[in-house]
């Protein structure tokens, strides 16, 4: 089982694909999302969003000023400014 991840910034879709885990920092602290997570809507505190893709490859995105939404194993990271770091 995998989660579907969408990373979107104000002017483009940054990354989209299947992942095993996603770690982001919300205003309350770091949060890790695996498959089967309860629906969630959180404000991002900015900084790195780390995605572990299916197969173990890692992906890091810098996301500023946005939020994260989880629903039905679909994670959407929406940020006004975001960029792919690696």
């Amino acid at each position, binding site marked *: 089982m995998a989660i579907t991840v969408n990373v979107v910034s104000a002017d483009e879709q940054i990354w989209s694909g299947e992942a095993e885990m996603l770690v982001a920092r919300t205003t309350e602290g770091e949060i890790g999302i695996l498959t089967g997570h309860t629906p969630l809507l959180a404000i991002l505190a900015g900084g790195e969003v780390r995605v572990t893709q299916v197969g173990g490859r890692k992906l890091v995105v810098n996301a500023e000023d946005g939020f994260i939404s989880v629903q039905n194993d679909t994670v959407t990271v*929406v940020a006004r400014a975001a960029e792919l770091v690696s």
Partner: protein
Amino acid sequence: MGAQLRVYRSKIRSAQTTKKITRAMELISASRIQKAQQRVAASTPYARAVTQAVSAVASYSNVDHILTTEKENVERAAVVIFASDRGLAGAFSASVLKESEELATLLRSQGKDVVFYLVGRKAVGYFSFRKRDSARAWTGGTDQPVFTTAKEIGDELVAAFMRDASDGGVDEIHIVYNRFVSMVTQTPEVVRLLPLEVVEGVEAPGDTAALPLYEFEPDADAVLDALLPVYIESRIFNAMLQSAASEHAARQRAMKSASDNADTLIKTYTRLANNARQSEITQQISEIVGGADALALAK
């Protein structure tokens, strides 16, 4: 030169000058569509993601927030009209204005007051000519929208939405804009921004299914408060970009048919001018021949 011929010549010249202008405008619009289309495509995922997230919360959770709950009696509705700054774009502004007229009639028949927010000089002109009121108008830059304008419109709308209806606020926000479907089709579209309408991709929960508990961080109010302006701005900006792309496409089409019309005009008038020239020559010849005949007879 005969008077008739001179009239035709000047008509041909004027059609040629007009054609030069319309042709230039056609080319300018054609080159700008591409860019405008790219901007629409680029901003769409963001708008869709925001809208989906918001409407998921609205349809799945039972959080009480103005963003997600409909008021029982709606007193006043805001209608935002996205027209263009300049004409010469066919039915572009007219179709949006017609659509919003219909929407206003519908809203009034439901017993709601309608407040208009106008974007684009053509909409402002339409309203001032009919001596109608609008709450606010933004002009300039409809063909190349910038995010700051979207933010300004969004701030104004959110402020109006937060106010009580008795205080001059609004309970509903509708937007009317031209959606860019393809180079040849742009359809005027009415969207209710607030309260939220459930969008595609989010299924409405069944009656029996228990609502999944949404988790909010830091808490529901804070998240939804932060989300509201983002949602409004992104939808408005997307509408502005769509409208800009549609405007260019509409103008390109209008200018193309204007150039084609100028071509047919030039052709028709050239034929007529040739005709006039020929009949003038024929007349001159017959006058000379007639004159020579008369001289020969007089001898």
